[in-house]
């Protein structure tokens, strides 16, 4: 039986052998993931300028953060962004996926086209859309004028959309607090939805195709209408997929930076700072001239806390309704 013990020994390896296989990945993960994550916490208690640690400041960064109206504005801007992008993207993607799932001819063609922007770099996408949104020469304003509307400033428009709507219908006064997201932010959101929707469609489509046909057949035999089938069969059986798409879109949306940076900032993060989202704020406070990376780390941790708690919250709320 000596070969059996050889086998056992082969699988129960001594830690050194295992380490040999783990070291290449492990070293990189420890130095460039774990160490930075751990030190983000540590750094948020220090002054860090030009990449060098200067001195301990305790909770001063957090206090300063809480007292900075720009920070709260950036949180509000991010909230608008997430609250706009996530539901619209989910709804349109689900709609497209349900339609594509109806034994469509040339399904591959539509999927390929819808997914195309996902492969395209955000930098190029931002440049193209900035050109489309151009206030004087842009394609969009041209189309609006052709349709009889007036042209808009789009990415240069600091006014909130609710305020603009109120002005458009002739109201003289509108409360400042209810101005809503600026049109510039809406334009950025449109681009984000356009860019990411193909990904969500593909995930939804995969989820739909995983629902066994028998359920649909049974529902049809029982005389269920299309709407009933969607509400009673598709929606509950798709819920794990919906949950995944909801979560991943939310997490990604909270970290939006590139489109904002390239389409509306710098120097100030959009017209009158109305597109300054949280990661833009972090970037500006940490890496601009005279930036304090300790302060930026505090911002990063607040962002992380928000994302983490939102993830857990969504999980708890949705899990009760998700049929696994």
């Amino acid at each position, binding site marked *: 039986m000596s070969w059996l013990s050889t*086998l056992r020994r*082969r*699988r*129960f*390896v001594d*830690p050194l052998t*295992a380490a040999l*296989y*783990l070291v*290449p*990945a492990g*070293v*990189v*993960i420890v*130095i*460039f*993931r*774990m*160490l*930075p*994550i751990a*030190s*983000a916490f540590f*750094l948020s208690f220090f002054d860090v300028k030009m*990449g*060098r*640690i200067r001195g301990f400041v305790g909770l001063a960064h957090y206090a300063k953060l809480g007292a900075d109206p720009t920070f709260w504005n950036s949180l509000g801007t991010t909230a608008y962004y997430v609250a706009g992008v996530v539901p619209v993207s989910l709804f349109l993607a689900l709609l*497209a996926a349900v339609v*594509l799932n*109806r034994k*469509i001819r040339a399904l591959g063609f539509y999927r390929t*086209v*819808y997914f*195309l922007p*996902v*492969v395209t*770099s955000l*930098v*190029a996408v931002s*440049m*193209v859309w900035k*050109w489309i949104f*151009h206030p004087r*020469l842009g*394609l969009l304003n*041209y189309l609006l004028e052709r349709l009889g509307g007036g042209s808009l400033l789009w990415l240069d428009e600091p006014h909130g959309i609710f305020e603009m709507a109120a002005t458009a219908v002739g109201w003289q006064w509108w409360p400042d607090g209810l101005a809503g997201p600026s049109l510039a932010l809406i334009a950025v959101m449109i681009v984000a939805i*356009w860019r990411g929707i*193909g990904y969500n469609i*593909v*995930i939804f489509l*995969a989820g739909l195709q995983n629902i066994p046909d028998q359920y649909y*057949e049974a529902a*049809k035999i029982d005389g269920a209408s299309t709407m009933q089938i969607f509400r009673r069969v598709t929606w509950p059986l798709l819920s794990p997929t919906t949950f995944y798409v909801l979560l991943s*879109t939310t997490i*990604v949306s909270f*970290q939006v930076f590139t489109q904002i940076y*390239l389409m509306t900032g710098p120097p100030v993060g959009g017209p009158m700072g109305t597109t300054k989202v949280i990661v833009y704020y972090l970037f500006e406070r940490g890496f601009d001239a005279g930036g304090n990376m300790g302060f930026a*780390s505090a911002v*990063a941790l607040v*962002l992380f806390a928000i994302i983490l708690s939102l993830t857990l919250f969504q999980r708890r709320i949705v899990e009760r309704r998700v049929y696994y």
Partner: protein
Amino acid sequence: MEAAATIRGNDPHTGYRARRILGRGGVYAALWIGVILMTVPFLWMLTTSLKSPIEILEFPPTWVPTGHFVEAAPGVWDEVYIVSRDAAAGTVTVRPIVGGLQRAVDESLVRDRIRLRFENYAEAWRQAPFARYYVNTIFVTICVVAGVLVTSSLAAYAFARMKFWGRDNIFVLFLSMMMVPQPVYIVPSYIILVKLGWIDTYQALIVPWLAHVFSIFLLRQHFKTIPNDLYDAAIIDGCSRFAFLWRVMLPLSKAILVAVVIFTIVGTWNSFLWPLVMTNTPEVRPLQVGLARFSQEQGTSHELMMAAATFSIAPLIAAYFFAQKHIIQSLATSGMKT
């Protein structure tokens, strides 16, 4: 499925067929609206990239880049800009694009022809060190892909096939790293790279990305599906542990490895925030950051920007059209959507 088809065929409702055909038409119309919305920005980018700086300013915009020509001598056509039109006199004031003075000519002498200015691409390529950016991106991408393949295979093999103290805890710890968003670790990473003296080097763009937790996870899951008997048999036959990985496991995991290669290439090629922060000089600057800098420079004209955008996305788009199924699938599994 056949049962459902039969039921549909026997549907007693009158007008069902007509409604179905109408519904079908509506579905395809909606899908085509989607196709237009998704492709028009790309077409607009292409057509803008082939226009002259004057044509860019024309309103309404043209969809097909058009040039204006005036016959200077019999058979010799000069390309001109239109400065102004005098409808009453029936003349057009034109200025030759290359040299020459502004002059008024009869309207009937001006011909419009399709004119695709591919020279815009050469001009954009010249205005910034795009050749350098391209080489940088390709070099970094190759290194990262090779590194990720090696480190992930080795680590996944250890997690899937070996038993050692703390294995599952280490694995979970690795996995938890996936939950941390990049903005959280980018500041401390910058400081670490400053301490290493790596800011503005290729190392800064390559080394931190040489291990990829999700790839380890994906490979480990697949390795676990390869039966233990195979391993035992190979070991009895005198195969070494590493040889088993190299000769049996990896060949059996080609599909996963291809997926890892694809999402690593797309992720590295398109990454922006990290190289934006970690590089300052054109010598190591990758394509995306170079493109962004180019677009933010004062006075860069729109047709050159669109040309640069086009040649920056061209390799991935070309690859996408050849292997869209693989690319969609691997990006979908990776959960990467930045």
